[in-house]
């Protein structure tokens, strides 16, 4: 393991972008990092709110119209190598908002996230459990370590 991979394994900066959805996943993810119960920092995962600092972008929610451009802009701002984690069933497939309807289908959803930016890992769940979030971010490690 070179110094590059070694250092990457010991400092992972995660940025969270919420793109609509019901708020449940956002809170569970912030909870998984801020709460001492789960404490992502013990796996050297740090929460950041600055795209220039981030390595991993965690996206929750089906992307609504107004959220599409901000999401793209933030994705553009992250320096390479960058990875994207889609968390929650909304981010994976548009969730109930896209797939469940009565007489009128929903036209509000641009998502899933895959349609807008490339996704490296998917965390299912409605809402995602903190354990799954940690597992998902850590499962990206091999890709992150081997990237240029």
């Amino acid at each position, binding site marked *: 393991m070179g110094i590059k991979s070694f250092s990457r394994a010991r400092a992972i900066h995660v940025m969270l972008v919420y793109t609509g959805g019901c708020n*449940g996943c956002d809170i569970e993810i912030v909870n998984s990092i801020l709460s001492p119960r789960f404490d992502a920092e013990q796996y050297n995962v740090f929460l950041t709110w600055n795209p220039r600092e981030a390595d991993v972008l965690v996206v929750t929610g089906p992307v609504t119209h107004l959220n599409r451009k901000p999401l793209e802009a933030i994705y553009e701002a992250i320096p390479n190598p960058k990875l994207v984690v889609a968390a929650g069933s909304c981010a994976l497939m548009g969730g109930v908002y896209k797939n469940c309807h009565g*007489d009128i289908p929903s036209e509000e959803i641009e998502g899933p996230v895959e349609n807008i930016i490339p996704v490296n890992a998917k965390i299912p769940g409605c809402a995602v459990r903190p354990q799954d979030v940690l597992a998902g971010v850590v499962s990206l490690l091999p890709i992150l370590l081997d990237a240029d």
Partner: protein
Amino acid sequence: MDEKVPRSNIIETEIPMGTVHPAALEPYRVRFFVEDEIVQEAEITIGVNHRGIERIMEGLPVEKANSLTEKICGICSNSHIWNSCRTAEIGLGIEIPERATYIRVIMGELERLHSHFLYLAHGCEVLSHETFSMRVFYLREIVMELLAMIGGNRVQYGCSVLGGVRPRCDVDEAKLLRLKNDMDAVEEGLTGFVERFLADSVVQSRITGIGVLPQKQAIELAVTGPTLRATGVARDLRTTMFEYDNFDFNVITQPDGDVRSNLVMRALESFESIKIIRQAIANIPEGKVVNRDWEMFDTDMNESYIEVPRGTLYHSYALESGRVRHCIIRTPSMANIGAMQYACIGDQITDAQLCIVQCDPCFTCTDRAIEIIRR
């Protein structure tokens, strides 16, 4: 103070924040108009979260629509499904077993606890007090585990169904015992936190007199829920709901309408919730939890108001051969947006996000019915 007026009308510059910002848990855009770092005016743009739930509910079978309302909000999901079921139950005249009512109340109060703890934790985080924030998150974790124990999931539990609660959410002796023990733990932890919080003079100086919402303005802006009670108006829909007839609790108010009143208010209300849960544990009657003995028929508009952690929630829809028609949902944050914009005025820009947070925003709840015009 009757009314807040900006110290001057000069707008030096505009500072937009959002849609992604560390102080906000949800996407929204806010523009602050400031003069020398003092906010003169604030404009919150919502609609970022618009998913059109009421529209996709149109024509869904009522059972399905009920569970869809749960996805409106990840914080007060139980309140939405509860009120949605309640709407149909009122319209169809379904009688709910006593035990189911008690379980609904337990879930509702647990949810109020977790929502208020989230509020306290988020408030401390916006104050940049990481330690307090983490301590409250730790307490909140106990409540989340209890919700997962009863409902089977940490966030969306789907507890209520038409005629009662899901049989999975029935509570047995072991669960009640754990609930009882954990309520003691939560109360102990919360007492410690509140004492520590109120004794911290630095934090107190930071939150006292900030983001004042005068009572007159609060009533004019039709603010609801804890934000209204923090200005001194004792208005709580729980006192009129039949579910709470057998419970004894106080309506908490605070005098000032500033951030301190709001935070203290949430903490004191949590103690009331613990009290209600304890009464429910002690008096929960035996019997079945769901009444399946009802018939579907077409109804006109049915409506139902309940008190949810953040204020008054309104659901209404008509039923037409078992399907939902003309659904309208009005969430508390809709009413409180005016208060958020108002509370910012006259405070430092560092406090501005705190003033918004103090009104307990839940824009995911709110962004459903507003018509957005695409440009």
